């Protein structure tokens, strides 16, 4: 018996081992880096500085701003994505002609490379290349120079990520809606319930766990917002659209302050991990590992 299990044990060990090396070792190295004043140019002398990098973080206004920006890019777009995704899922959850084609088209924003999402919107917002400024002018709106003011730059990115992620919310809600039992609705119709009542008292309670799952994943993934920022605003104007991971990237790979960048990512990591462990253990239980 022991010999026959060897194949399973080896397969699992190789997978777990590789993943451990690829994740735990970097996490440890990242932490180590944050305690030193290390960069490639000063590879020879890298003094141990203890918590100095962490102390610096909390008086760094650009860092504090980046945390605020990160929160902005969660709090503003995620509810819009969920609301519109749910709305579309409810519309599509009926027998429609061409529903396969419709659903396939809705996949597009979600599956294309994020860098291409950025490219599309960079062109759309362009005063000459894109259609937006002309068609807005037809209805009497003067299109802003999107990327030059704080509020419009934030709005421009919010619009792009909302476009990108509505289909994700829609697909998951749709899968949930289709798995619902039909009986409660039939009973409700017999009792003369209105559409609104059915939605409020049957559909929404059913959807609650799914909504929880969608919310958790959208929050975690919104934390990783990067390619779109890189390609559209580059974090600007100033640092108005610079989330924490983007600031960490700039610090580590443009200013070449690897240690300080690592420190930011450690804080980011700590927050994320607490959040992820707490919620993902629930979610994997809910959808069955």
């Amino acid at each position, binding site marked *: 018996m022991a010999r026959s299990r060897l194949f*399973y044990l080896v397969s699992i060990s190789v997978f777990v081992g590789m993943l451990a090396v690829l994740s735990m070792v970097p996490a440890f190295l990242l932490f180590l*880096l944050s305690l030193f004043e290390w960069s490639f140019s000063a590879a020879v002398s890298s003094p141990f500085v203890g918590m100095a990098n962490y102390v610096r973080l909390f008086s760094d206004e650009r860092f504090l701003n980046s945390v605020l920006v990160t929160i902005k890019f969660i709090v503003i777009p995620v509810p819009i994505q969920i609301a519109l995704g749910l709305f579309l899922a409810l519309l599509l959850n009926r027998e429609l002609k061409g529903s396969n084609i419709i659903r396939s088209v*809705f996949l597009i924003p979600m599956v294309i490379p994020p860098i291409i999402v950025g490219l599309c919107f960079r062109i759309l917002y362009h005063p000459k290349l894109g259609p937006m400024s002309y068609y807005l002018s037809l209805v009497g709106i003067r299109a802003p120079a999107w990327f030059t003011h704080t509020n419009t730059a934030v709005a421009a990115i919010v619009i792009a990520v909302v476009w990108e992620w509505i289909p994700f919310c829609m697909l*998951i809600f749709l899968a949930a809606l289709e798995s619902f039992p039909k009986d409660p609705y039939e009973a409700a119709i017999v009792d003369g319930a209105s559409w609104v009542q059915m939605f409020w008292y049957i559909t929404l309670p059913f959807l609650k766990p799914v909504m929880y799952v969608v919310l958790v994943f959208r929050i975690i993934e919104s934390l990783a917002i*990067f390619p779109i920022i890189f390609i559209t605003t580059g974090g600007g104007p100033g640092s108005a659209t610079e989330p924490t991971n983007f600031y960490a990237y700039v610090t580590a790979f443009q200013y070449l302050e690897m240690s300080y960048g690592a420190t930011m990512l450690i804080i980011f990591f700590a927050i994320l991990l607490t959040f992820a462990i707490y919620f993902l253990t629930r979610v994997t239980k809910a959808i069955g590992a």
Partner: protein
Amino acid sequence: MRRKKIIDLVAVYPVISIALFFTVIPVVWLGLMSLKREVEMFVYPPRILFDPTVFNYVDLMGEVEFYKYLINSLIVSGGSVVLAAVVAIPAAYSFTRLKFKAKRGLITWAIIIRTVPGLIYIIPYFVVLKFMGLLDTRLGLIIADSVFTLPLAVWLAIPFFEQVPKDLLSAAEVDGASPAQVFLRIALPVVTPGLIAVFILVFIFTWNEFVFALILTRSDAVTAPVAIAYFLGFEGQGVGWGRISAGGILMLIPVIVFAIMVRKYLVKGLLVGAVKY
């Protein structure tokens, strides 16, 4: 029943049409851009009807040598699929055959690793790959990407193996086949269609991947998304908007085709960020 039809006609279809319009317009506009000459691009108001040209595509491949980046992307994605096939698929099968206490914990751990944004790993990867001489190589990028693709593949493959009838497997074992033989000859053929979907999702993910490719490559191993980002670095003046748009279209065609092929499996995969993050 008639009432439903009327509601569909006056409300549902129009609203869906509007949603579809806004869904496709950014991509369609990119397509139009890729077919426009430079002079036509800057005409105001923008033209929807124009004399299309394929010069952008020709120049992109010829002058700009975009095929190099596409080949890099293909190799990185293909290599990631092979690595997933060799490491993740046997592991997924073994997870379904073994019962042990830490199993759920291990799978959750793998998913958490997958869910962490790539930037967390990138500084150590950069440093270690540099010391190993693997910076700016496709192999280095494949190894880095596997921190995402391996958990993704295991997570996606487990349900397929769970559907294989247990009797089928135990019958073969009674006949004296070793676990490896049962896996290769009995289980694999049954789950092949599902595994193809898994591989397609791994392919899409690595094809779309940007953060690792941006930081871990310089020139030799630059992938297509990073190349497009570099082109855009100068407001499109170096390469030209038409050619950049053509590159964008070339990048998204395979993804859209693949995504439609695996649409059925997408929902489960989406929950662990199957296509991108």
